[in-house]
């Protein structure tokens, strides 16, 4: 092996800790505090739904990270070994996400049943449909859409994700010390059953948390749509971590252009996949033109008086920003491998995912006419504060886990292949 780099201190026992760990925690807490202040200014529903956007956003990214690790193991991939370690650290955020989901549950249980999900309150007045209780569509779905089911399912989603994360992390971290290939085999098996479990959990999470906000509406594609956003978010965060560690010097000599090219290609591929799923869903509903499905999109395009809703423009922002911009941008080889070129696009993708989630969640807030409350409103501030708050906690969890192990899985069977990775 070659001589140690002048920039890196010789033979570090573990990855060096980052000084920003504490800062992330304070930023997170500050964000949460601002969100809490929002309760004094906006209505509880507005703040709660904004908070739902935040928690869904970071959970999606964590799920995506989990899936990337699972897929890495099942396909015996080598290119992603060094990055995988950072994904594993990111999984530390799951237990905090579970904790951060509690405020929504508590608000529902203790404060007001329909603060987020209208169907939780039988007396909730539907615009032009009477109350939830008398709504035939609710009655039909009541055995699925009820509070105990919701709580049990949500708890089990987090249980599944936390358990899988713990298993993957432990196996991988232990391998650093004993170099036993059994751990790789074990992770491969975990992945075999972990992928279907995670997939089911994320589909139903998307149905319960997001789709049921508008419980009249239904689409079989919804889970797949959520999956696409999860992976895209995780890849973008992965790229940012790679760039950060490179800039800090940790990854110098470890990472090469091809690693970035590979992850960039995945970003590109899932851009296409997201577009495919989202287009198919919209297209099939547009083409069939059945009122019981189109109302979901109509709500996001027109107000009751025929004027154009702000959400329509948000839809266009998503169409162009979530597909065309990254698609065309990432076509180029250079844009995938030059650090200063890939960075803006992954940040862009991360922001558009947030807008996509807003588009799916926030129109559940109605005004007195049954129209969606506009996009540009104070709610946006609570969305941002929740995203910063929960994000701060996630980053803190990652940074706290970061120094507990080696920077890269030094005893992974594929580590050498990874370091010499070429196309």
């Amino acid at each position, binding site marked *: 092996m070659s001589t140690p780099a002048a920039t890196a201190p010789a033979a570090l026992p573990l990855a060096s800790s980052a000084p920003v760990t504490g800062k992330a925690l304070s930023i997170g807490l500050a964000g949460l505090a601002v969100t809490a202040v929002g309760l004094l200014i906006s209505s509880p529903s507005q703040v709660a739904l904004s908070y739902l956007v935040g928690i869904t956003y970071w959970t999606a990214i964590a799920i995506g990270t989990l899936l990337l690790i699972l897929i890495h193991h099942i396909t015996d991939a080598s290119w992603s070994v060094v990055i995988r370690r950072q994904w594993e650290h990111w999984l530390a955020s799951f237990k905090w996400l579970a904790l951060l989901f509690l405020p929504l549950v508590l608000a529902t249980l203790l404060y007001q049943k329909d603060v987020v999900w209208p169907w939780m309150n039988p007396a909730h007045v539907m615009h032009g449909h009477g109350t939830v209780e008398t709504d035939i569509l609710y009655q039909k779905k009541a055995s699925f859409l009820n509070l105990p089911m919701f709580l049990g399912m949500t708890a089990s989603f987090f249980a599944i994700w936390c358990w899988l994360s713990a298993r993957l992390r432990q196996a991988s971290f232990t391998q650093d010390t004993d170099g036993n290939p059994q751990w790789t085999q074990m992770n491969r098996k975990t992945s075999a059953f972990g992928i279907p479990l995670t997939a089911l959990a994320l589909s139903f999470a998307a149905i319960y948390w997001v789709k049921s906000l508008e419980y009249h509406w239904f689409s079989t594609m919804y889970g797949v749509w959520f999956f696409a956003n999860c992976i895209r978010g995780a890849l973008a965060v992965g790229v940012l971590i790679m760039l950060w560690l490179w800039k800090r010097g940790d990854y110098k000599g470890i990472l090469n252009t091809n690693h970035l090219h590979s992850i960039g290609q995945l970003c590109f591929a899932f851009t296409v996949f997201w577009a495919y799923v989202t*287009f198919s869903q919209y*297209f099939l509903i*547009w*083409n069939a*033109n059945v009122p019981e499905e189109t109302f979901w999109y109509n709500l996001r395009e027109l107000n009751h008086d025929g004027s154009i809703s702000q959400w329509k423009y948000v839809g266009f922002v998503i169409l162009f920003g979530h597909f065309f911009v990254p698609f065309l941008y990432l*076509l180029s*080889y250079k844009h995938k491998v030059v650090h200063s070129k890939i960075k803006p696009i992954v940040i862009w993708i991360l922001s558009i995912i947030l807008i996509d989630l807003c588009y799916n969640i926030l129109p559940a807030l109605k005004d007195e006419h049954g129209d969606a409350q506009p996009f540009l409103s104070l709610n946006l501030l609570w969305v941002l504060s929740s995203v910063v708050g929960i994000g701060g906690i996630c980053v803190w969890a990652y940074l706290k886990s970061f120094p507990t192990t080696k920077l890269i899985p030094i005893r992974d069977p594929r580590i050498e292949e990874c370091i010499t990775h*070429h*196309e």
Partner: protein
Amino acid sequence: MPAEPYGLIATFETAADIYHAAEQVRDAGYKRWDCITPCPVHGLDKAMGVKRSIVPRISLAGGLTGFCTGMSMIWWMNSYDYPLTVGGKPLFSPMFAFPISYELTILFTAFATIGGMFIVNRLPMHYHAVLKYEHIRRGLDDRFFVVIEARDPKFNLAATRALLEQAGGLAVTELEA
């Protein structure tokens, strides 16, 4: 006057040998030369100093043409030349025009890619001096060759032969044009 040879050909046994030989020929400053290999050898492009292929740009042009063709064709046919209301759908919408435009994008990209590859490679070329070499068959089977063309400004029969032999080339032979 004896006919000017096409160039010199040297045989190599392994991928590693030709890799190193290619680096030497490249460093010697030759431009009109080539390696003959039975399969793509990783890294040989870099060893030879070959630039990244321009084929993807041709493909992109093809794809854009295809997409525009699709959209404009459907608009022109269904909305302009023969407007016809069917199924309550608008005369033109990018929604229903998308599937076909998408297929045409791919079709045109494929044509552009393959056509581009053939043109950039100057193929088909059924007659070529290298293909007249008596052992060329091994070049598609399990041997590697380096060919340096006489057209190269640095070409010098003796010096080039020496370079090839020094790089480990076996059976250095002149190719007739």
